[in-house]
């Protein structure tokens, strides 16, 4: 673990860095590819909707030694025109799904099944769903989705700025597409539980994104008052600095969900727990990916179009060219970036930075180091 801690430190210092922002086109490409695959999967396979969406009845028997085919034979005559789908659950109980039955018929079928399987009627769990119910749940979900998107865009635009809000929402849509795509391609059943999970992903995926953006906001606070780094470079640095944090929060968020998935799938068989956990798991993983690889690079992209930031980029590039001409030795090392921070106490000195001190001294006087301290604190 200390090695990971070390990595955290080196990421913080900028000694190790992955150029997320620089290679953004690669990751945009990857994301577009994934999205395309998801959309194609959705179009070709479609979503496998659970009985809640089409209407019908689900009966769950207590633990039983009967096999699936035995049950199918026994209840063959009970269900009238509709066919029954029989599943054996992890607990040994049986799940019998019958589509297109109303409430009244379901009660009759239940008692028939009970007599055929030699069970008491009240031991059988029954769920009967009207045909419009699933539709209503999905409509509500979409309504919630839209309201949430609007509110969160407004909030993020106030808390950060509109560019970040746009990037966050794009990342969010990206997560949802991936999750839906995974469901279409793998053929997991979509139940109201899945919808719940998906809606929760909204909040959670943004949690990650917000943590990253917060770091970004801090790193780039006084960006126009310096001309050593472009916005993209600082964005990338901030991303690398918060990388450990992002990984940790994601892992810790995924662990309980994994436990739910394991217990929900392993012990209880199919059911609400399993459905929620599965969509959460897929969505959270996609959310972690998108907040690092998509959201921040998008912000950088949008920002670079801002005239002020454009001007900064020009200044930075011009200065670098000038520096390169002036002195062969004084190249801007990215790991020196701490000094661009407004942190007044960068004196937790790192030898690696020593070579760049001259660069520091060349800073214009206007550059505001905080609290009136002379910038040449390094003696």
């Amino acid at each position, binding site marked *: 673990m200390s090695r990971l801690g070390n990595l955290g430190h080196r990421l913080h210092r900028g000694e190790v860095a992955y150029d997320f922002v620089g290679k953004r086109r690669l990751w945009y490409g990857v994301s577009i590819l994934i999205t395309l695959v998801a959309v194609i999967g959705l179009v070709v396979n479609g979503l496998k909707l659970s009985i809640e969406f089409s209407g019908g009845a689900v009966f769950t028997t207590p633990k039983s030694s009967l096999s699936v085919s035995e049950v199918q034979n026994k209840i063959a005559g009970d269900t009238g025109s509709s066919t029954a789908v029989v599943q054996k659950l992890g607990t040994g109980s049986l799940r019998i799904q019958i589509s297109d039955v109303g409430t009244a018929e379901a009660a009759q079928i239940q008692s028939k099944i009970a007599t055929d399987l030699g069970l008491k009627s009240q031991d*059988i769990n029954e769920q009967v769903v009207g045909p419009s119910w699933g539709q209503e749940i999905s409509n509500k979900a979409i309504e919630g989705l839209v309201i*949430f998107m609007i509110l969160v865009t407004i909030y993020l635009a106030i808390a950060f700025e509109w560019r970040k809000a746009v990037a966050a929402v794009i990342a969010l849509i990206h997560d949802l597409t991936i999750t839906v795509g995974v469901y279409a391609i793998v053929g997991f059943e979509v139940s109201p539980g899945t919808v719940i999970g998906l809606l929760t992903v909204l909040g959670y995926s943004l949690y990650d994104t917000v943590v990253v953006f917060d770091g970004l906001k801090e790193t780039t606070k006084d960006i126009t008052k310096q001309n050593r780094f472009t916005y993209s470079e600082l964005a990338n640095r901030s991303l690398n600095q918060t990388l450990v944090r992002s990984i940790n929060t994601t892992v810790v968020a995924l662990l309980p969900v994994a436990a739910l998935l394991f217990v929900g799938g392993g012990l209880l068989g199919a059911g609400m727990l399993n459905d929620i956990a599965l969509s959460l798991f897929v969505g959270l993983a996609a959310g972690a990916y998108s907040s690092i690889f998509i959201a921040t690079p998008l912000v950088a992209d949008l920002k670079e179009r801002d005239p002020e930031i454009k001007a900064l980029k020009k200044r930075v590039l011009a200065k670098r060219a000038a520096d390169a001409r002036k002195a062969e030795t004084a190249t801007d090392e990215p790991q020196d970036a701490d000094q661009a921070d407004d942190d007044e106490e960068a004196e937790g000195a790192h030898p690696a930075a020593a070579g760049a001190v001259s660069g520091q001294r060349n800073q214009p006087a206007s550059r505001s180091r905080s609290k009136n301290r002379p910038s040449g604190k390094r003696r």
Partner: protein
Amino acid sequence: MAAPKKGRRSSGSQGYPGRALAAILLAMVALTGGMFLSGHTTPRLGIDLAGGTSITLTAKSNQPNAINKTNMNTAVDIINRRVNGLGVSEAEVQTQGSNNIIVNIPKGTNSKQAEEQVGTTAQLYFRPVLAMAANTSASASASPSASASGSASPSASASPSAKSTSSASAAPSASSTKQGRAVTDGLKAASATASASASATPPASPSPSASATASTGTLDTSIPNDLATKFTALDCSNAKERANLNLNAKPTDKIVACSQDGTEKYILGVSAVDGKNVSKASSGYDTQQGNGWIVTLSFDGTGSKDFSKITSQLSQQTDPNNRFAITLDNEVVSAPSVTTTLSGSAEIYGSFTQTSAEDLSNVLSYGSLPLTFDKSDVTTVSPAVGGEQLHGGLIAGAVGLALVVLYLLAYYRGLSFVAVLSLVVSAALTYTIMALLGPAIGFALNLPAVCGAIVAIGITADSFIVFFERIRDELREGRSLQPAVARGWPRARRTILVSDFVSFLSAAVLFVVSVSKVQGFAFTLGLTTLLDVAVVFLFTKPLMTILARRKFYASGHPWSGLDPRALGVQPPLRRVRRPAARSEVKEA
């Protein structure tokens, strides 16, 4: 070392960590105390965990604005009445979202019957009263009702007040059949005063001719013999008997019925006015005539016509035949007497209290409720499976919590002590609040709510990670622990607040727009997010401030999770540079 000096300074600027800790501990003690005092030491379990039947009804209407809060609440009242009237214990009925009603019927008691009841549409009719009597159990029916017949009270048996002239045939200690005939006789006599044609009807025959004559203008008050027998045998205090009483009765049948509280029983004529023709009903306090609480109702066109017809007939009768019964699902809600012919609107007065007046007006409004309900979702869970699901959820929670604790322990070592304690505090608060919310706002823990609580473990732990990583960042800058905590906090705080706000926003939106089980999930998620903020502010941060003074953490013990070497800070350099750095910090 520099630490002590800094420590004083930072503790001054950070307030009093002890107070915050004391506050949250006090809150915990208060909540736990409240929990034990109120006797609700476990959260109320939802149907899917405790077993039972849960029915979701979706309102449908062909009128655009019919699905509104008032109508839905009226419907909830009515359904509540019907379900709980069956003797089902603790069935709960509540609206959810804008157009759904959830009916939860716990395991046991005639849940099957309740389920059927919920499905059928409630029917409101105005029927003329043919006879009424105080309820008595079937075996003892003869004598008490006979003695009651001597009195003039309206709740007494029908015969005496109905006719003063004819034979007071309600002889004491009459047999049940005799008693029945006595009533019939009495009513016949009563009807004789109103209409000769009806009086000609032999009491023993159900007599279609009688009803035929009645429909031509006069009231048909004849009572078929089988009804009379049924009436005498009827015991309204027996819930089961009442529930089965008029299962297949049509509005065009004469019926025997019980009052809703089961204290009176009635024989009722064919329906005179359909409840659907009530256009409006309200309750109010009558200040002008001093009648106390009254219920006002008005009818639409058809209703007015029918109502004026029946009241003109009824007003010529004597008690109790001048009464009409307002029946909901064939139970008598109220049976006011009529003195004059009424048409478009009417007032009902009597010994109403505010509640009973409102109840009656609600029932009457139901007649005009332009809503029908579809069963959208019916879920029956046997207690065994409910227990299994609860068990599964608890195991999942325990495993999830253990995994998170192990990860934190491995990665943050000593720091995880703070995180784990905070998680424990958070869990304790969540549990006690859930337990208390059960009786307070009817919160019931269902499976999605359990799921939400488990997912919340991750969200809560994330806040600690944000804080810890901040502290480590500050340590990497070369600070010692106490200033690192002091400086790391404001930034971590902002991140935590912003991200928790987003989390809470999603939970709130989910709660407002969602239906059914989703709400339970959203509720727990929102609750735990709020608690997360409280715990981080009032527990984690103060605890961290206090622990930062301890040598184990402050000196960066290898197991503290704050070892500068493990974090990659080179100690020798730090030692050399620190004195200069310190003076700068002071200015900052």
